[in-house]
């Protein structure tokens, strides 16, 4: 247990150092546009966690990022590159909206059915890429990425024509409003964070448990670590891929469902792609090296940078884009494995067995 704790602490050093370096790079950017560094960061903190309201706001924004990140992390841990979170998110959201709108069932049942519909829709869209790999050896990286565009336009078509809300103004392509009784409950009255955050937190814990304590999770990790070792041991790649892609896309689909039922209450064209949830989710998984709990934490961090950036824009002359600069800098520092190269050279060598 102690080892577990020290290990996770050691795992934190690198992301924290990258975070500090990212903030330092951000300071340069702030100075370059003529802002006051201290004041800007203070506003940023306030915008993200400055009050209970802002904190819940940040958690609400983190919710879809967490779920998407978990799905991506699961695929990465299995050794599959699923970059199709955006498309899976959209199909999940659309399926959830349609179910919530048109399923003739009591509200509680409709809500659960809508969540499940989102999960299944996202999973199936993701599985399509897995099937293309198994059947035609189509590279997952490419197929998942390109399937995003198809998903975006298909969903866009549905809300622009057959499912379009024609009651109100015709300016926005969106579905009808979902009945209030089917909405995910808010966690606190008047605050934006909703039950979806609880779902995401439970999902993180669940994924952590599955990876660590189930046979399926064990096989998945081994396949991700050395696919040939897993094959040699009798792990069936095809079956593993089907389940991993289904679950991975399922998480993204669930993110879409939760966002529709908890925040937007209808499917609105571009409302899920514009904030870049999918890419933030992929970043969260990368930041945390695909560790489930770390991914959840990283998702909150990324959401905080975004809500904090909005705070900065509200209250200072520094533009919103600065938050993106900081975010990008942090990602760069982490993916550069900066600490690794600089300080851990000797140590890493020792660990890879070359001490022999």
């Amino acid at each position, binding site marked *: 247990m102690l080892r577990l704790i020290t290990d996770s602490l050691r795992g934190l050093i690198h992301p924290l150092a990258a975070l500090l370096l990212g903030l330092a790079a951000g300071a340069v950017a702030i100075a370059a546009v003529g802002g006051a560094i201290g004041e800007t960061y203070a506003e940023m903190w306030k915008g993200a966690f400055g009050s209970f309201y802002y904190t819940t706001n940040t958690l609400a924004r983190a919710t879809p990022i967490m779920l998407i990140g978990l799905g991506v992390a699961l695929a990465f841990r299995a050794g599959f590159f699923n970059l199709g979170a955006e498309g899976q998110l959209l199909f999940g959201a659309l399926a959830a909206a349609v179910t919530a709108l048109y399923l003739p069932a009591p509200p509680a049942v409709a809500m659960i059915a809508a969540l499940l519909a989102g999960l299944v829709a996202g999973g199936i869209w993701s599985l399509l890429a897995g099937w293309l790999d198994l059947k035609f050896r189509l590279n997952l990286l490419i197929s998942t990425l390109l399937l995003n565009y198809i998903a975006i336009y298909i969903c866009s078509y549905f809300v622009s024509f057959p499912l379009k809300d024609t009651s109100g103004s015709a300016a926005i392509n969106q579905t009808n409003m979902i009945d209030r009784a089917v909405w995910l409950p808010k966690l606190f009255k008047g605050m934006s964070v909703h039950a979806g955050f609880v779902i995401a937190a439970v999902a993180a814990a669940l994924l952590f448990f599955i990876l660590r304590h189930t046979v399926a*999770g064990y096989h998945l990790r081994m396949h991700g670590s050395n696919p040939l070792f897993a094959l040699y041991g009798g792990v*069936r790649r095809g079956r593993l891929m089907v389940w991993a892609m289904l679950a991975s896309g399922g998480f993204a689909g669930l993110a879409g469902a939760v966002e529709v039922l908890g925040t937007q209450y209808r499917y609105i064209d571009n409302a899920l792609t514009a904030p870049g949830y999918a890419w933030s989710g992929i970043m969260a998984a990368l930041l945390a090296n695909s560790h489930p709990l770390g991914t959840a934490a990283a998702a909150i961090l990324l959401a905080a940078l975004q809500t904090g950036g909005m705070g900065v824009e509200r209250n200072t002359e520094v533009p919103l884009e600065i938050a993106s600069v900081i975010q990008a800098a942090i990602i760069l520092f982490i993916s550069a494995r900066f600490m690794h190269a600089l300080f851990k050279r*000797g140590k890493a060598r020792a*660990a890879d067995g070359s001490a*022999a």
Partner: protein
Amino acid sequence: MLLQMERITKTYGDVVANAGVDFTLEKGEVHALVGENGAGKTTLMRILYGEETPTSGTIRLRGEERTFRSPEDAIRAGIGMVHQHFMLFPSFTVAENIVAGREPRSGILFDRKKAAEEVARLSAEYGMPVDPNRRVADCPLGIQQRVEILKVLYQGADIIILDEPSAVLTPLEVRELLAAIRGLARRGKSFILITHKLQEVMDVADRITVLRDGRVTATVRAADTDVEELSRLMVGRELVPFEKRPARPGEPVLEVQRLTIRGGRGKAKPLLDGVTFSVRAGEIVGVAGISGNGQSELIEALAGLRRIDAGAVRLCGRDVTGADVRDIRRQGLAHIPEDRYRWGSAKEESICDNGAMGHTDRAKRFGLLLRGRVRRLAESWIDGFRIKAESPDAKAGSLSGGNLQKLIAARELAHGSPLVIAAEPTRGVDIGAMEIIHGELLKRRDEGGAILLVSSELTEILKLSDRILVLFEGRIAGELAAEEATEEEISRLMAGVTDHADRSERAHVAAYHG
């Protein structure tokens, strides 16, 4: 004195890899560095080659104190290293590989013709013939090694470190290598030879330094010692004399009928061509051959990792032709793979996780992995096979090669399966590990297990096998009973020298009915 390494100490946290090691080398000398895996040989050489910095100690080159911060530094000072795993670009020619990094130019362009000329000159000068324009991928391993040595010479090395140079070579290639080393030493080059193979050391070295647990246990002149004394110094105890009772074979466990695997696209020659044999309970069947004659394909096909084009495989009486790995394993196969890093382990994962592979069925409840049970299994293997490991939670990659190999052997033998495929079970491991693995394989045989031993190490084949098959170009070139097999005869079959079709047929029939 050309090189003096004095009181070299290297620690990684609590682990002491080298403790006050002294090592010297004279011009024109061949100095062998022997010791078990994890004894600190490689660490010492990495320090000399600038890949590690010592915690303390000094290095003097031609009397002058030096520190090497990188291999580049060491190369400039005239120190070259040939790694155990060759570092060549297979799709480039011999000459391109040798000059890589120090290419002759004409203007800004790479002067390919000049490179070939220089390589030809170098190869003639040192009496190491190579064809400069041949692609490395098309060269046998013995030639590839020659290319590695020429590369180091081209870089201007006076001191050449060879790490396990004979691990992948055929007996003939080893003899050529040793002759080449002696020849270069006569021309004033100095060699540091890291190896486990004591007979080669006795044949080629002037002096021998033995390391154990990071310390020098002795530095002796080759003329003043023998193989027995060296192994005692390495292991720190007397080795148990090897005893093997005659086999009492029972029912056939593995029956292979006309197994054929076609070559890749555009290759007319099949990789395996109508291979027929059987392995019975209670016997070890050795498959000898120069690597690349179909051994890998045979192992992978039997294990379910490769598609079979024709023929049939029966395991414990059931047809498993074309079955997948999981089904074959369930039917009764355990498999010590040829390459412990490629197939046999996941370096980044823990020893426990590496040990659990294939054992999850007996360590699960309701789909949950019983980590406690896996851990106890791993601990019992660490004890039983004397695996040197920090803890069962340490990464598998932190084990030395020999200890990882013991872990894999332990994991596979723990299945208690009717058939064990042991592919190169002791490649690159030290005497102690070899003793344990060989002992366990033999024990399994005596308990009625069927063992298919695939090895390119003739001594290993001769020591363990009850029957010996020789693979040459995807066919069984001959089959010999262990009692009548000699190294010379197997070597001839391995090289495909004589036509044995008729004799092998008879031997096969005899073995079957005998």
